[in-house]
């Protein structure tokens, strides 16, 4: 059994970070994981995406044509990747920046106002954590306890940011229900 999650948006949204948190959480739960960034000549405001592969057996190809799930943080990402997601997957649509649907009837599309929810709990910059948490709550790829633990660890060197991000996590979980 293997799942692949494409995280996509623009540089500065914390795309690579939430991919890393998911990969870390899956590793903590005993899965094989690989986190594969796009590392082309990118810049702030340019495209940024990473793929997280989670499996119960050693991971073969880090190159995946049709990922299982998508977390799309801006419109170009949704337009680019929604058509290639496997049927039955979860597509998180960041409604704060995206005014269209994925156009897929065979996936579970979860629309979340990530920036507004993050602003409500203290800072719109935490919209990436809102998106990640909503996605995990819906896809159930890892447990919410492990996710919480890994968010805390990610911000361990900047503990002031932990309460904000945990609130953002709760907001994301609620949005997925």
């Amino acid at each position: 059994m293997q799942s692949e999650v494409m995280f996509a948006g623009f540089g500065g949204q914390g795309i690579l970070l939430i991919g890393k948190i998911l990969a870390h959480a899956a590793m903590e739960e005993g899965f094989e994981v690989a986190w594969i960034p796009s590392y082309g000549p990118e810049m702030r405001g340019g495209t940024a995406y990473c793929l997280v592969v989670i499996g119960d057996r050693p991971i073969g190809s880090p190159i995946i044509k049709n990922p299982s799930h998508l977390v799309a943080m801006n419109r170009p990402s949704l337009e680019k990747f929604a058509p290639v997601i496997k049927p039955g997957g979860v597509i998180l649509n960041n409604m704060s920046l995206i005014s269209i649907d994925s156009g897929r009837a065979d996936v579970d599309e979860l629309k979340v106002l990530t920036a507004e929810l993050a602003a409500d709990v203290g800072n719109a910059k935490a919209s990436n954590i809102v998106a990640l948490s909503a996605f995990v709550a819906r896809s159930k790829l890892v447990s919410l306890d492990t996710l919480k633990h890994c968010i805390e660890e990610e911000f361990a060197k900047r503990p002031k940011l932990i309460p904000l991000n945990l609130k953002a996590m709760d907001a994301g979980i609620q949005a997925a229900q």
Partner: protein
Amino acid sequence: MPKVLMKGNEAIAEAAIRAGCLNYFAYPITPQSEVAEYLSWRMPEVNGVFLQGESEVAVSYMIFGAAGAGVRVFTTSSSPGISLMSEAISYLCGAQLPAVFVNIMRGGPGLGGILPSQADYLQATKGIGHGDCRLLVMAPASVQEAAEMVMTAFPLAEKYRNPVMILGDGLIGQMMEPVEFPDQLKSEASNKDGWATNGMDHRGSTTRNLVKSLFLDAEQLNDNNLILRAKYERMKKEDVRWECWNTEETYDALIVSYGTMSRVCKTAISMLKEEGIEVGLVRPQTLFPFPEQAVRQAAQKEGCRVVLSVEMSMGQMVEDVERCVQGALPVKWYGKCGGDVPTPEEIIDLVKTTLSSL
């Protein structure tokens, strides 16, 4: 030590420290700059030396100096940077000095691009520098294997008194995977007093050791080359490494592939299996010495009709594969080298098209 999630570049850096290498000189270049970034703070923690040189040429001769003085030393770079170091690598081979070079390959030639590539295969295995010099070249396919190969590379470099290269593609450096390190730091291993210019006082000797690659006398130079040749032959006997995959039963085709590309091939082979098409894989873990016998034997297996060399280059390793197969079967090449790694679907198409064309 528990598993940690690390980029290949970071794992390479930590592995070197855990292998007891406390000297790192480098010049940054994508896609391997995280090694330098990591060691810029990590080396001081273990009282090691981190030094960013003014160029790859300078760095390569800092390596020469440190290796000559008998300490463990390594550097990391990417394709154009390795080209700049190639003169010193030849000098290191000639002077019989151990050092470790990591090449996280990007596309070429020239400045090329920064995306993953395997197009330095011929350079690393056959043409790293002028003269009859060779490197022992290891090719990791995962972050864990990259770390393990780095830790193996130092003792191997000392065993042969010859530089060792870790040849990874950009994805091996950039990808994060869980990695486990041994708890203990390994201390400086072999005794280098016999040849290193490490001072006479501590060894109570009145003879100076001399490190050089200049032999103006024809006979002496030929002798030095015979010594080197004997070492390269010994590498072929003692330190060739490979992995065979899906080769227990019969198969219609054999793929030879290494690094990230071999993982894509494994996935393709698993998918083909579901359709009833069997394909074997030989994954060289050392590129020099090349697993000649393993490739030859796998190609000779009853039922195998074709051998495919799948690589992120325009056809380099295929020359070694052809050499091993010795005309017994058709050998085909498939590859790309702009930075897009071929997908499993492409490999599946390749296998099907090739088999139906025979």
